[in-house]
Structure formats: C-alpha cells, structure tokens
C-alpha cells in the first residue's frame, strides 16, 4: 500500500469509528467498543508501517480546503521523522488505553459513548500530528481540546467533573487565542502556513519574537505550563484511562510537539527562548513541590506531568530538538504506564488515596506493582530506564551556554521528582500502620473477594506489560530516533551525567529514609513544616488567586454590563417609550372627536395654502 493510503486509513479509521459508535451503536455498547478497538488497531498498525517504511525525504499529500481572496488553506498529511514517531506513539498508546478501558469501563453505563470519544480524540490527535500546515494544526489543536472536554467531563452528573472540563477548555482556550493571533501574524508576514516552508524562512528579529511568543502562549495553555497549569490537576476528574491518554502522549504533549515542529522558528528568537527556559524551569520546580505533598495518586502523577512537560520545553528551549523530543516520547510511555497502574489500584480499591491503597494491600497486585516501580524509576531518571537517557540529554543540553540557574533548577526538579515518585512507591508497597500519615479515607477491604475480576484480567495487564517493556527498552532507541529526526545523538560523558544521577539517587535515598525503611514515620520532610506543606498542598494558592482575580473580574464586568444592558439600554429604550406615551396623552387632548371641527380646520389650512400658492402664482 502506498504511503498516502496508509496515512488515510490511519486518520479516517478513528473518525469512522466515532460516528459509528456514537450514532450507529448508541444502544449497543459491545458493538461500539469493538468498532473503536478495531479502528485503534488499524491506526496503530498503519502508523507503525509508515514508521517502518520511512523515507529520508518528507512526503506531502494535500487537498485544498479554502482558496479565496488572500487565503489558501489545505488539508493533508506530512510524513517526516517528527510526525512519524509521534504518530506511532500516539496510535500505540491510544490502542493500549483502549484495550485497558475494556475492563476499566466494563460496568459503566456510558461506555459506548466513552469509546466513541476516545476515537474522536485519537482522530483529532493524529490529524494534528500529521498536519502539514499550521492551519490544520490549529484546527485539530482545537478539536483535541474539544474531545478532551467531553472526556474530562465524561461523568457529566458530577458537578466537579463538569467544572473541571469547563476549566480545562477555557484555560487552554486562553492559550489558543495567543496561538491564533500568532498564526494570523505569521500568515501575514510570510503568506504561507506550510510547516516546511515556514521552517525554512528567516525573519527580521522583532517580528519573530512577537510571533513565537504568541505561539508559546498557546503551548503554555495546552501543555499546562505556569501560569496556565491549574487546569491539569483538576482534569483528573475524568476516568483514569482518560488521564492516561490526555496527560501522557496526547493532549498535553501537543504543545511540546508544536514547539518541536517549529523548532527552527523558535531558534531565531533569542528573547522567546529565554522566556521559554524561565517558564519551563519554574514550572518544573513549582509543580514538583506540589507533587511532594499530594495524597491523591492521580494528582501526584498530574503534577509530575506538568513538571516533565517543563523538562521537555527546557530541552527544546535550550536548543536541543533531540533531547526534548526524546523525552516527549519516553515520557509518553512511562507516564501512560504509571497512570494505567494507578487506574488499576483505584479501580481495585476504590480510592485515590495513596496511603489507603498501601494499607489495603496495594502490593498484592503484583504485575501492577511491578509496572508502578519500573515506571516510577523511569520517571525518577534512574539508569538504565527510558527516562534516564532523555533527562540526561536535557540536563546536558542546558549545560552549554546557558546560565547556571537553569541547570540548578533542573537538578532541583529532578531531585524532587525522584523523591515524590519513590514516596508514592514506598507508600504503596511498604505500608506502615504505625506511621504518622493518615489517609483521607479508608479503603474498603478487598482481601479475598475479587468481585472486580469481571472476565479476564488480560485487557488490564497486557497494556501494562507492554508499556513496562517500553519503559525499560525505549531508552536504547535514542540513536534511531535521532536519525529519524535528522539529528546526531549526543552521548554525554559519565562525568557530565554524574550530578543528575547523584541528585536522583539522593532523592530516592531521602524517600527511603522518610517512607521506605521499616521504622519510617512516613511523614516527609516537607510535611514537618506545616506552613510549607499547606502552601504546596494548595498549589501555591494560585487557583484561589485566579478565582478571585480573573474569574471574579470577568464576572464583575459581566455583571456591570448586564446592569448596563438592563438599566441603560433597555431602560433607555423604555424611557423613550414612556416619554412618547406621555406626549401622546397630552396631544390626545386636542382630539375633541368633533368631526366638523376637524374638517373645518383642515379646509381652512388647505384654503390658506391654496390662497398663498394661487396669489403667488398670479403675481
């Protein structure tokens, strides 16, 4: 099969599945799920085949969308190294998560709808990834946001889920506005939105600073960077597979992918790069601190997602396309793994609380626990797992010609990552009933009765095993990825790697001392400082601040204008109306109802006019 056919199958299969599942099999969950699963399989196979047949030259398949006036917009597929890798990652991880959801969502009454929206999400994400033009990128960027809105708010009867979905949509839309304006400005200065052409363009400096900064605003929104990061932890209201999908390989990765896509443009803008580095580093540190105290397993992972996205942007911003991109791929795999493991615990013990899971005997789920440990180690950057290689590369790239502060920030974040990851692992695997830590809620006891074992556990375990293998092995594929990207892989020397490995090990050690050893109080060093703990737990009070400041402001303006509308415009119109009525009442008094008076008056006036005209004419 030709490349364009493969690409089309890869893109169209999920869309078809979405419509079939949503409209055709509305009341037949089994058929809907089967359709979606098959389409996911087809997409994944096509994406992998495309990757395998990759040719060094980028391929382009396009169809015109709008061609009028000064606008020429087309739809198509761009097949080059970046899109092929990302497409394969997206398709495979989506397939894993769809398989996993078979068990996870087995009893949910809305499972048909759930699978349909998974398919929609996959479609939007794949079209986004393979997009050859910034316009198409933007279209599907928006659609990814839309699909995520429906997935996060999947349990629509929970007000918190609806609120989280709304928050996610609006906060990413704030970013989208930036991206949109950037897009239009870019279009105006280059008259093209073609990604390949744009990347080959050179700009005069000030213009590109503005454009890239606006693009970066979009990335900040989508990839949940400071200050628009607060939607991501709330988005955990969705079902866990959704979190696994959204916060590993897809939605949030879209921002980073966009950065990688336009890496050449960003490299021309010095100022923007500095801002990117600052924000990324700050975000990585900030969200790590929040992860250190979170008790909700999904929240820990959510904060860690934010911080890892910061790492990726650090790598890209430091100028190393390969480092950032590599971390994007590896993170996609091990974060998906971690979320799936978390989902397995949550599903089994019906609680999100780490401590409660540990007390209830979390480690008894052996395969899941193994996945959690390996994924966590990868996240912490322990050699020789996937996260180690990519994180090393990022820290290595920061070392060249950038202020020390960024390296220090990265190391600090790296240390905290190792600490909170192993805090989570130890709390699950080595529960200590005498510890000071207390769970928010006790997990129901599921010692023996396995009423959750609906059918086979294979759909749950197969993806976990597959992703575990990925988390172990992917790090060694760095050279091939670099080749696909057209970059040369840089292998840092052991001396360069030493500090990073050191802080990671230190983090693990500290976690062991605080939580792991049998006499541990299981009360982290942060928790011993109540003020700091509260600060971290409340997410540095940013949410509350935003709520007061922006939401309050918007509502105040809305209220003001609402009053203006009711009292000003409507009132004004009504005032004019009542004034007219009063005038009419006064004027009506002149109406005596005497017919002859009317006739006489009119005749008199008419006669006067006639006389005036007649005499005037005769003169």
């Amino acid at each position, binding site marked *: 099969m030709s490349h364009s056919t493969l690409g089309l199958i890869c893109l169209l299969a999920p869309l078809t599945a979405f419509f079939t599942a949503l409209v055709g099999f509305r009341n037949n969950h089994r058929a809907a799920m089967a359709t979606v699963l098959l389409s996911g399989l087809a997409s994944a196979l096509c994406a992998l085949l495309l990757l395998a047949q990759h040719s060094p030259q980028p391929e382009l398949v396009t169809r*015109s*969308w*709008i*061609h*009028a*006036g*000064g*606008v020429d917009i087309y739809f198509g597929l761009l097949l080059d190294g970046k899109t092929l890798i990302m497409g394969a990652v997206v398709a495979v991880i989506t397939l894993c998560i769809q398989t996993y959801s078979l068990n996870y969502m087995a009893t949910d009454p809305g499972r048909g709808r759930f699978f349909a929206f998974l398919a929609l999400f996959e479609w939007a994400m794949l079209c986004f990834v393979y997009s050859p033009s910034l316009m198409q990128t*933007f*279209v*599907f960027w*928006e*659609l990814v946001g*839309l699909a995520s809105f429906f997935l996060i*708010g999947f349990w*629509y*009867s*929970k*007000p918190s889920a*609806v*609120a989280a*979905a*709304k928050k996610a*949509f*609006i906060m990413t*839309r*704030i970013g*989208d*506005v930036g991206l*949109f*304006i950037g897009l*239009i*400005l870019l*279009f*105006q200065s280059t008259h093209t939105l073609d990604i390949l052409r744009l990347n080959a363009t050179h700009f005069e400096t000030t213009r590109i600073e503005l454009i890239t900064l606006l693009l970066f605003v979009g990335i900040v929104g989508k990839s949940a960077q400071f200050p628009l990061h607060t939607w991501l932890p709330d988005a955990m209201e969705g079902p866990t597979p959704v979190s696994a999908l959204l916060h590993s390989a897809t939605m949030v990765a879209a921002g980073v992918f966009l950065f990688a896509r336009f890496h050449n443009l960003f490299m021309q803008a010095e100022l923007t790069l500095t801002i990117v580095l600052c924000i990324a580093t700050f975000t990585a540190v900030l969200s790590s601190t929040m992860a250190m105290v979170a008790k909700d397993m999904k929240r820990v992972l959510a904060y860690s997602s934010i911080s890892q996205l910061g790492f990726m942007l650090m790598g890209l911003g430091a100028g190393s396309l390969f480092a950032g991109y590599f971390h994007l791929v590896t993170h996609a795999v091990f974060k998906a793994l971690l979320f799936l493991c978390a989902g397995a615990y949550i599903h089994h013990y019906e609680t999100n609380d780490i401590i409660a899971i540990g007390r209830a005997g979390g480690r008894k789920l052996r395969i899941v626990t193994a996945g959690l440990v390996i994924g966590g180690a990868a996240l912490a950057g322990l050699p020789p797992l996937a996260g180690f290689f990519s994180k090393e590369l990022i820290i290595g790239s920061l070392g060249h010609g950038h202020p020390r502060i960024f390296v220090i920030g990265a190391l600090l974040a790296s240390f905290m990552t190792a600490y909170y990851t192993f805090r989570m692992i130890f709390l699950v695997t080595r529960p200590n009933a005498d510890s000071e830590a207390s769970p928010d809620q006790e997990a129901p006891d599921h010692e023996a009765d396995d009423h959750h074992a609906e059918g086979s556990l294979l759909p749950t375990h197969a993806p976990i095993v597959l992703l575990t293998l990925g988390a172990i092995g992917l790090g060694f594929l760095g050279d091939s990825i670099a080749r696909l990207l057209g970059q040369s892989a840089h292998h840092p020397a052991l001396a360069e790697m030493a500090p990073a490995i050191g802080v990671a090990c230190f983090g693990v050690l500290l976690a062991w001392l605080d939580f792991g050893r049998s006499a541990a109080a299981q009360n982290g060093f942060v928790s011993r400082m109540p003020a700091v703990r509260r600060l971290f737990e409340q997410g540095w009070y940013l949410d509350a601040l935003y709520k007061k400041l922006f939401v309050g402001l*918007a*509502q105040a*303006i*809305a*209220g003001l*204008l*609402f009053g203006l*509308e009711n009292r000003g*415009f*409507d009132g004004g*119109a009504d005032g004019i*109306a009542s004034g007219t009525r009063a005038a009419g009442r006064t004027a009506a008094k002149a109406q005596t109802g005497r017919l002859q008076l009317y006739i006489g008056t009119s005749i008199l006036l008419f006669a006067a006019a006639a006389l005036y005209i007649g005499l005037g004419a005769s003169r």
Partner: protein
Amino acid sequence: MSDMPILSIILLAPLVAFLITVVLPEAQTQLIKIINAVAGLTTLVLALVVWASYDKDLGGYQMIEDVPWVPDFGIHYTVAVDGISVVLTMLTAIVFLTGVLSMWTLEKRVKEYFAFMGLLVFGVFGVFISLDIFVFFFFYEVAVLPMYPLIAIWGSTRKEYSAMKLTIFLMVGSALLFPGLIALFVESGGHTWNLVALSQAGTFSESTQIFIYPFLYIGFGILAGMWPFHSWSPTGHVAAPTAVSMLHAGVLMKLGAFGILRIAIGVLPLGAAYWAPTFAVLATIGIVYGAFVAMRQTDFKYVIGFSSVSHMGIVLLGLNTLGVDGVNGAVFQMFAHGIMTALFFSAVGFIYDQTHDRDIRHFGGLVGQIPVATSFFILAALCGMGVPGFASFWAELLVFIEAIRVFPVLGMVAIVGLVFTAAYVLRVLGLAIFGPKNSDWDELVEPTPFLSIPRIMLIAVLLFFGFVPSLMVDMISSATHIFSAAGASL
C-alpha cells in the same frame, strides 16, 4: 441555464402558500402545514438549482429578470443573484423549511400563523434577490412587519412589550433608511433605482457619500443587531415562538447585514471607507459586550439572543474591514450563524414546548434524560464557540485574518472575545445540560424521528460546510472580488 424565471418562482412560492393558507378554512390545519412545507421544499430545491446553475467563474449578477413597475419614477421589478444572494437565498430556504417542520405541533391559530410566516419569507426572499433599491425597501418592510403579530400573538414572556419594542426599533431603522434611500435616488439624478447603475463609480461625490452612509449603515445596522442599537433583538428572540425566532435570528437579522453590504457599502464605497474605523469599533464592542452579557443571563433564549449580538458583531466587523477575506468571512458567518441560531432555537423550542420553562438554573443533567434532544443543543453550542468542523469556524477565521490586517487592535480584542464566548456557552452546558440529574424532568420525551428531521438537516448543513468550506467560499468570493485583497486602504 434555462429561461424559466426561477428567481420569481422562488419569490412567489411563499406568497402562493400565503394565499392558499388565507383561503383555506381554519380547521384544515394539517393541510395548511403540508402546503407550507411543500412551499419550503420548493424554495429549497430551487435554491439548490440556482446554486448549481450560477456560473461562479463568470461572477456578477445572473438570471436577471427585469419588468418596469412604476416607470415614471424609474422603479423596476428587477431580480438577479450574485454569489452573496445565492448563499443567502439558500439560507432562507433552509430556515423556512426547517422552521415549518419545527412548528409541526403548533395548535394555536395555525392558519394565521403560517400566513404571516409565508408573508415574512416572501419579503425576505424579495430583499435578497432584488436589484432595485425601491423594490428592495418594499420587500424589506414586507419582511419586517409580520414580526409584530407573530410575536404578539404566539409569543411568550412579555410578548406585547417585546413585539412593540421590536417594531419601534425597526421602524426607527426604516425612518433612517428611507431618507437615505431617497437621497440616493435624488442625488443620482432621479432616473433610476437600479443598484448596478447607482454603484457606478462617480455617481456620488465623496462628501455626499460620507453624509448619506451613516443613515444607511445605522438604518440597516439596527436590524442587524448592531451595538448599541441591539436591545430589541434579545427581547424579541425571547418572546417569539420557535420558528419565528429561527427566522428572526436566522434570516431577518441577515437582511440588515445584507443591506449594509449591498447598498451602503456597494453604492457608497468612499463613505464606507471613511466610516469603517468608527463602525468597526462599535462592532468589536458588540462582540465582547454580547459575550459578557450572555454570561449573566439565566434564560436559555436570552443567552442565545446575546450570543447573536456577539456573532453579528463578527459579521459587522468583517464587513467593515472592506477587504475581500473579511467580507467573505462576514457573508459566510451570516450563513453559518443563520443555520446555527435556527438550530439553537429549534433545540430550545423543543425543550420549552414540553417544560414551559427556560431558566437554565432549573435544569440539570438533561443529557441523561433526553440525549438526542440535548445533543442538538450541544452541537449548536459547539458551533457557537467556533469549534473547527463547524461552518462558523471558517467564517470567524476569515474575518479575524482580515481584521488583524486592517485593525490589529480591534482584531485582537475580538479574538480575545472568543474566550468569553466559550465561557458563557460552557456555563449553559454545565448548568443545564450536564450536572446532576433533576428528577423534575423525568417525564420529558425525545423528539420523534419526524421532529428530528429539521434539526438533523441544520446540523448536516453546519457540518457539511465545516468540512467542505471551499464550496461556500468559492461561491461568495465570486461576488466579493470588487473588494481589495489587501483590505481597506487606511
């Protein structure tokens, strides 16, 4: 192209339906509905024929029919279509048909209702296809007048007040328009009302244009829901019955925008260039203002009413850019918004017919009880947010591209308005459609397949042009090439 006077047939179809409806006895409600549906279907089929047979490469006015009416004053019955008219004729036909189908369950004074509706549609078609300004104005008034009885008799929620307010506002608009149009006739030498002749460069001096233009712009702008003369429109939307809201927001407001484009800008380009920055500011205020006010409304229809103010602001902003992309986008937005609001009101009307309640705070979790009916509403809401895949996305995109080029600051403000648009749409969805189930509404039933037909048609149109926007843009741009590709020279 055939010699059949196809445009006149489109124009006459609703009139014939009106006459038959008037003659038929009161009790024949089913027959009356069927006759109006047939008229709607006829116009839709003919509008498709017009679309297909219009030669886009040739452009300009085609299928011209010209009959002298009052020769002493140069008044001719002249009808013709260009790319813009083709699009709007199609819009009217779609909304007419779906409007009739949406009101299939009406029982109160069916005969009079459909009679007025036929008259209204007759006027709307007349406006979209006439080339003679006098005839244009005649049809314009024919279209506007039936609104009063339609709202005052079949409406709800302060219906007399709303009907009166609407009529007064529109009459004020006409009062501005009429002298403006007469001035056009007199200033041009008093020979002709023909648009093409009047549009010839050099007919009016620049100072004349600058003087007359605001009369026409504001006169038409009032009907287009132009800020700050918009306040009739939300109250009117709210009070009107479903199909009237559909026609009103879907088509009637477009008459105003169409008048601005065809007459004000078409005949007075220099005046338009002079006033464009001023009116662009008002349009932008309208966009943001509508979104903010919609955020605080508690009535479904008020939210939609103010969203119309906001969306029509986008149309007006596009027109005021005077650039080809902006005008393309504005016309596209007229079409997309027409279909979208029709869908909105159709969906809300369905819920209201059953519950007799429109306060969004009283609802909750409706999607669990009537998923099909609410999914129509959700789709309309998504279109309102400008989500890609729906027609309005492209329309807004084109407008914003041009707006940023011509008025960078206003363009950015308008784009930021999108965030607030999302905020108020999601607020409604979150409160009424999602959220905890409210068992008060357990009794609600889904629409029958027959009642779903009009809504599905509207959705299909929105999605179709969302995925294949080039069809629409090609058609529109065959008429907009007169505008400079680089925007207004300011």
